């Protein structure tokens, strides 16, 4: 009851109110939260309880076990005797829809025996205390929920507005998950994006978020299939969540509510939004979250589309290498980094020999196969940190960040030999390769030009060779 979605209540102010009520009614009052944890302190000094618990709060494990068992079996109210012999009246607080906690009322008589009259007094006092406390709690709850809804709706409005104007996928994913963790105090929040026939978790935050990142779930998985078979959100059990691939070890409390929202737009499935919250969001919360999920779907669809277009705009379709436009940006970036950190950058310029005649003789389709295979071979000869680009036609450029001239030459020789020795269809394929390494003050144009000139020299000197322009 202290700080959760249902009720944000100041313990200190509550205690003042409870103590005053106790004095007026001449009965001891004590409150537990909805999970059976002690919330307030004893209002009146009952020596036995103080002794056992060494203070004003219930801490003794036997007492706590007794109360929790009682709360679990309690319907509305009950008159009983605690294991230490104190007669008490227990009430469940809240309403039929929501349990807010439990109230204990005792008379300040310790373990003295109770006659019928005393029992009636206890019952009457407990009933009056219950009526007062429950009304106060209900009023506070209503105020709290209104406050939360205002916060919720304001946040949803602000974030939705921003989400649909941002096109960077990472930022959109961050915004969606951050906001849900903050607004709903979620233990875990994740967004999965549709990739073909799978949902891939693109962002996950919260207690075990790191365990979820990158996991892939087939759309045909029974749990995922159920999520996408309806427009409304799906409530999952912990076991159902753990059935999904790669999350069998996920630590999720059994009391949490797990909700999965399918994210749709007019174009189809975008992905899914998952949230694990410590307390039920209630119908209003789920509806508000649905509005949020709808905006999230649009924002993610936009950002995914932009991201794909950006990727396609810089990639050569045939080889998967960067295209000439992206080469310029990549080389400028590497030259700037090299200047900052003081390391060299080398560039290898590759031109396949007599490729025009290969195309003219065996057709463009055969030529495309050679280009694809040559790209594969080049890729196998370089590091993952090196940047491979298709400069145009049968020309390739490799950027080698942090590589000096000597090592760049070795890489160039390796590419030359690998191409020459590969059994291409119809005839042998060789290349003329130029190598240049950055100098102080080199620009994109000057470095690229020197590597191109070196390639030209290699061609001029008889092809199938490496020429070093250093």
């Amino acid at each position: 009851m202290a700080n959760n979605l249902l009720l944000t209540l100041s313990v200190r102010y509550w205690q003042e109110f409870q103590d005053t009520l106790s004095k007026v009614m001449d009965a001891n009052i004590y409150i537990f939260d909805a999970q059976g944890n002690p919330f307030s302190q004893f209002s009146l000094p009952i020596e036995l309880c103080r002794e056992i618990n060494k203070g004003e709060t219930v801490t003794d494990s036997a007492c706590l076990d007794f109360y929790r068992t009682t709360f679990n079996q309690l319907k509305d109210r009950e008159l009983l005797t605690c294991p230490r012999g104190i007669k008490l009246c227990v009430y469940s607080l809240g309403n039929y829809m929501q349990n807010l906690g439990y109230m204990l009322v005792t008379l300040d008589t310790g373990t003295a025996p109770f006659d019928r009259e005393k029992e009636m007094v206890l019952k009457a006092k407990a009933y009056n205390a219950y009526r007062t406390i429950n009304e106060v709690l209900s009023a506070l709850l209503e105020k709290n929920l209104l406050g939360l809804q205002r916060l919720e709706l304001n946040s949803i409005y602000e974030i939705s507005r921003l989400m649909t104007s941002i096109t960077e996928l990472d930022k959109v994913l961050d915004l969606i998950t951050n906001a849900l963790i903050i607004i709903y105090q979620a233990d875990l929040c994740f967004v999965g994006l549709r990739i073909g026939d799978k949902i891939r978790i693109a962002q996950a935050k919260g207690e075990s978020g790191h365990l979820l990142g990158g996991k892939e779930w087939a759309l045909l998985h029974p749990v995922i299939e159920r999520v996408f078979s309806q427009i409304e959100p799906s409530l999952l059990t912990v076991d159902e969540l753990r059935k999904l691939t790669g999350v069998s070890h996920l630590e999720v409390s059994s009391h949490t509510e797990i909700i999965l929202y399918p994210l749709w737009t007019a174009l189809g499935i975008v992905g899914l939004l998952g949230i694990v919250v410590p307390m039920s969001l209630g119908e209003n919360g789920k509806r508000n979250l649905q509005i949020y999920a709808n905006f999230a779907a649009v924002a993610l669809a936009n950002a995914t589309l932009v991201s794909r277009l950006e990727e396609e705009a810089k990639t050569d379709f045939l080889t998967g290498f960067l295209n000439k436009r992206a080469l310029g940006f990549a080389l400028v970036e590497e030259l700037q980094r090299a200047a900052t950190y003081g390391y060299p950058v080398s560039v290898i310029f590759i031109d396949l020999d007599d490729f025009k005649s290969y195309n003219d003789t065996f057709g463009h389709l055969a030529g495309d196969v050679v280009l694809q295979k040559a790209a594969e071979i080049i890729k196998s000869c370089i590091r993952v940190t090196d940047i491979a680009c298709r400069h145009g036609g049968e020309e390739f450029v490799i950027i080698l960040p942090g590589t000096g001239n000597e090592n760049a030459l070795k890489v160039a020789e390796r590419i030359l030999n690998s191409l020459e020795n590969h059994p291409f269809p119809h005839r042998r394929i060789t290349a003329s390769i130029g190598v240049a390494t950055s100098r102080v003050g080199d620009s994109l144009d000057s470095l690229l030009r020197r590597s191109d000139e070196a390639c030209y020299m290699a061609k001029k000197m008889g092809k199938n060779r490496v020429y070093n322009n250093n």
Partner: protein
Amino acid sequence: MEEAAKDIIVRYETLLKEMWSESAKYLGTLSTNLLVERVVWELSQEYPAVRLLKYGPEGISCAPMQVNEEKSFNDLEEMFMRFVTRYVSILAKLLGHERAEEIRKKIITEFGGAC
């Protein structure tokens, strides 16, 4: 307003500003302000003065608290402490405990154990 209260506000304002800008580096200003709004809402019942915190795209400020001299603020130190504790606990969920702890340590070092 007593001098001591003014001092507390000034001291914590510097701390909150540092916390805000460190968080904004990782979360962005919108999420950071949402986080502040959430914590303000949570504490506002117990500490009405927390509503006087001003926050927006430019950062966080305690200026409205400083100009409300005619009002007496009780439990300022406690209010700020609770604010920082709650803020960091949510931050840990967003950034992971490691990074949140890094931010907390950095703030502690810079502010000589103020939180």
